[in-house]
């Protein structure tokens, strides 16, 4: 029997059984080349364990399993039964919430409180798509009395899904929900930084009763397993969440191989706009959450803050005070808000941007250095006196670092907000009814928050304009990523031509 499990411990669960194999055909297996890689605890910098690594050969095996399932047993499962399996899975996630959250905190470094929130959201998302499964309808279209026209929405087939490390379980839920509800099968690659929670989750997929091969979850690296997925000739669609740079690579590989359908959810440099009439106290709490939530590791983080000149000084002073109140520390401490960044690489990258900000002449209002001396912790950081062309204003930092700039008029701030290659999210803080709607309608971003930030729902579509992505996740819209239309035209009359 292959060594595909190990025993681990967390402060909240005590000892638990951690699968380490590749989850293919409802079983955990070793990789063909028997490679493994280490998983690091970002709070302690120590190795947690090793997991099996999927290489190109393993991707082939997983794709075959998904293809066989798609052509065989999964086709026989009715939409209602698909929905019921997802509802069952959602119940199992809720039942095992503490375990999943604990593994997430251990591997990713997010606080246990935030992790519990994430897992609750995963269950909600899966339950939501479970409810969609038997409500995906085509149309009949009345064109002529001697014809009968109708459309069907059919699954695409085998879907490759590549997810990031910032919300390992939530990103998994967002991907599998709509894909399974619509009848596809999946090969999902988790991020190499955070492979553990997906493997624990995989056990519940089998327990819920999904047939083997419908959902395959593999650990591996982007350059090997991820590349193999993007260029695979028998994968019909690839969905990716991650950096814009990698998104481009995936799109190129998809085009070069079999023109598989592509949806991408990429980076952002989202503007957070505060007007003079905003409620300062409430706004501060949202702006703080907007950048420091998940340690700044959010694609939609409000990292560029624009404050109208009338309240600028007051705002900066109050926000600095608020930022310094964020509790940074041990993810398993119940009061912790901000844990460590996910890896050494990310830590170095963020510190590099902080250096660049200082060198380009921006002012550090607070933070700007490491927190503590062990673990990848960074102090919540604020830059002011920024110029739009600075690196810290143009490039995605993906850490607890924001920049604040001043503006005078609505026209001016819209121009400043749009000075970016991205368009994922944005926010407007104001009490004025019309300003809120008018500015929301003008912003070129996939999500606009008014008087809040980072509030997502499985019911509301999410995705980017411009180089922040292609397609929308969540809500009814996500179903379109995983279905294709077939038009059927039945002639009820005789011949038209001689």
């Amino acid at each position, binding site marked *: 029997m292959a060594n595909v499990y190990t025993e681990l411990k967390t402060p909240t669960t005590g000892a638990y059984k951690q699968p380490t194999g590749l989850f293919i055909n409802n079983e955990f297996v070793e990789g063909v080349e028997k490679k493994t890689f280490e998983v690091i605890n970002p709070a302690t910098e120590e190795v947690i364990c090793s997991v099996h690594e999927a290489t190109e050969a393993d991707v082939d095996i997983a794709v075959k399993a998904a293809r066989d399932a798609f052509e065989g047993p999964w086709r026989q499962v009715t939409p209602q039964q698909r929905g019921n399996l997802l509802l069952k899975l959602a119940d199992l996630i809720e039942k095992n919430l503490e375990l999943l959250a604990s593994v997430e905190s251990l591997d990713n470094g997010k606080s246990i409180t935030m992790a519990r929130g994430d897992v609750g959201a995963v269950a909600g998302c899966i339950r939501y798509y479970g409810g969609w499964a038997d409500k995906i309808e085509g149309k009949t279209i009345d064109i002529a009395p001697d014809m009968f026209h109708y459309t069907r929405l059919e699954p695409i087939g085998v879907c490759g899904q590549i997810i990031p490390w910032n919300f390992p379980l939530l990103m998994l839920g967002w991907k599998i929900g709509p894909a399974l509800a619509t009848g596809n099968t999946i090969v999902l690659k988790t991020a190499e930084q955070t492979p553990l929670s997906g493997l624990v989750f995989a056990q519940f997929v089998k327990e819920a009763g999904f047939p083997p091969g419908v959902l395959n979850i593999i650990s591996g690296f982007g350059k090997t397993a991820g590349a193999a997925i993007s260029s695979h000739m028998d994968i019909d669609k690839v969905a990716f969440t991650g950096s814009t740079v990698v998104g481009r690579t995936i799109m190129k590989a998809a085009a070069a191989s079999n023109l598989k359908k592509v949806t991408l959810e990429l980076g952002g440099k989202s503007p957070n706009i505060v007007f003079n009439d905003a409620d300062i106290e409430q706004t501060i709490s949202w702006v703080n959450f907007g950048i420091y939530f998940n340690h700044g590791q959010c694609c939609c983080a409000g990292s560029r803050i624009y404050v109208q000149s009338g309240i600028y000084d007051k705002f900066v002073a109050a926000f600095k005070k608020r930022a310094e109140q964020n509790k940074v520390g041990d993810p398993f401490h119940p009061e912790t808000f901000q844990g460590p960044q996910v890896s050494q690489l990310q830590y170095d990258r963020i510190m590099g941007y902080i250096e660049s900000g200082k060198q380009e002449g921006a002012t550090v209002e607070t933070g700007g250095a490491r927190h503590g001396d062990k673990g990848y912790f960074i102090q919540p950081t604020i830059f002011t006196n920024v110029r739009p062309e600075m690196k810290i204003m143009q490039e995605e930092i993906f850490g607890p670092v924001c920049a604040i700039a001043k503006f005078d008029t609505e026209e001016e701030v819209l121009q400043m907000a749009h000075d970016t290659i991205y368009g994922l999210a944005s926010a407007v803080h104001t009490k004025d009814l019309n300003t809120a709607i008018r500015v929301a309608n003008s912003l070129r971003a996939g999500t606009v928050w008014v008087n809040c930030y980072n509030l997502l729902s499985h019911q509301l579509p999410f995705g980017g304009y411009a180089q922040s992505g292609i397609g929308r996740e969540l809500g*009814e819209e996500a179903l379109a990523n995983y279905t294709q239309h077939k038009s059927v035209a039945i002639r009820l009359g005789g011949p038209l031509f001689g």
Partner: protein
Amino acid sequence: MEVDLTAPNGRKWAQPLGLFINNEFVKSSNEQKLASINPTTEEEICSVYAATSDDIDTAVAAARKAFRDPSWKSLSGTERGALMLKLADLVSQHAETLATIECLDNGKPYTTALTENVPEVVNVFRYYGGYADKNFGQVIDVGPAKFAYTVKEPLGVCGQIIPWNYPLDMAAWKLGPALCCGNTVVLKLAEQTPLSMLYLANLIKEAGFPPGVVNIINGYGREAGAALVQHPQVDKIAFTGSTATGKEIMKLASATMKNITLETGGKSPLIVFEDADLDLAATWSHIGIMSNQGQICTATSRILVHENIYDKFTEKFKAKIQQLSVLGDPFEKTTFQGPQVTKQQYERVLSYINIGKEEGATLFLGGEAAPQKGKGFFIAPTVFTNVKTTMKIYREEIFGPCAAVASFKTEEEAIEMANDSTYGLGAALFTKDLNRAHRVAREIEAGMVWINSSNDADFRVPFGGVKQSGIGRELGEAGLAPYCNVKAIHVNMAA
């Protein structure tokens, strides 16, 4: 407020007897009761409290209060849906008891109740539970000067009156969309079948619905039903039952201009074309009129057969009935057909059979009462042939195991005969010809058409009638519209 019952299959349960208001069972205001008769034995099962108009006031007030209370009003669609999913799970866990009560009270076979009716309830609650957070409004772009959007709002307190032929299913069809859309409900059960939904009421409380959201009462149509339909604090009435009562309700509701949906009677035609697969047609013709003791609103009770295959078809139809329609105690596994629901219905069906004989139709099969062990409201499955379209048994809804078979020569004649009715609920047609199937389906005046089957409804597909078979649709996504108000909101952006 409850009595311990034991059914012939050995199952025991505590049967609630009260009016279910605010998640509690209470007596009627004057302690009046109505008796529930077991149609197999003709004996009384028990008596339940019957609502007076004062009790209707109490129930409606509870529903109105609950509608405004944050415990229901402030729930998100997802949370409402979660309650409904929980209820579906509980119904599934209590399947055997619910099926037992249904069989005892209504007379339908236990196996049918367990394998069809209870699962239907589970499916409908789960389906509409899944819709609760997927009922969208629109944003309509009319230009920058206006931000226009619509929201779907619940109507308020819904009075729902259901019949006795599918006590559990009909309750689910009504509660599902109403609760999904955020309404509160006063559900009046049929006086012939008051028991099964009282048991289910306990599961509603257990699932976590706040008090007053669902109120379930028994009572007489003329008293409790009429009070509900006229009550000024009820925002909407939904009724399933006879066309005659439906018209009464429409009249009563007009005084306060209530929003109403009605699902009433039918005399649905089943057309067998010359090229039909006759075995298939016979199988479904049997299902279409002999299931549920013929007590189906969509029963395909008028069978129109092409003259060239008339004799061949009627022989196969007869053989199917003789093979499958085993009369007996509904608790026996072999029973296909139980008793009619009450003495009144039994006598009504028998009188139509006599009329058929008097009108000169040929009695091809059955035609008389068929007591089991000397008891029960059983009627032999009956078929009349050589039926003329002027006959009463051809035009009027019998609501029993009695089919009228007529013949036709051409497709045009079949369509004309099919449409020659004040009803328009269901219809069925049998043919192998692709063109004919879709073409004729479009020509028939009915809310539903089955091609090569009959009475093959599905909770995801809209259900309802045209003409005097009803107003509005139930089931599927279409079932949501009758339970929402579309509110349009205009924000002036030019201000």
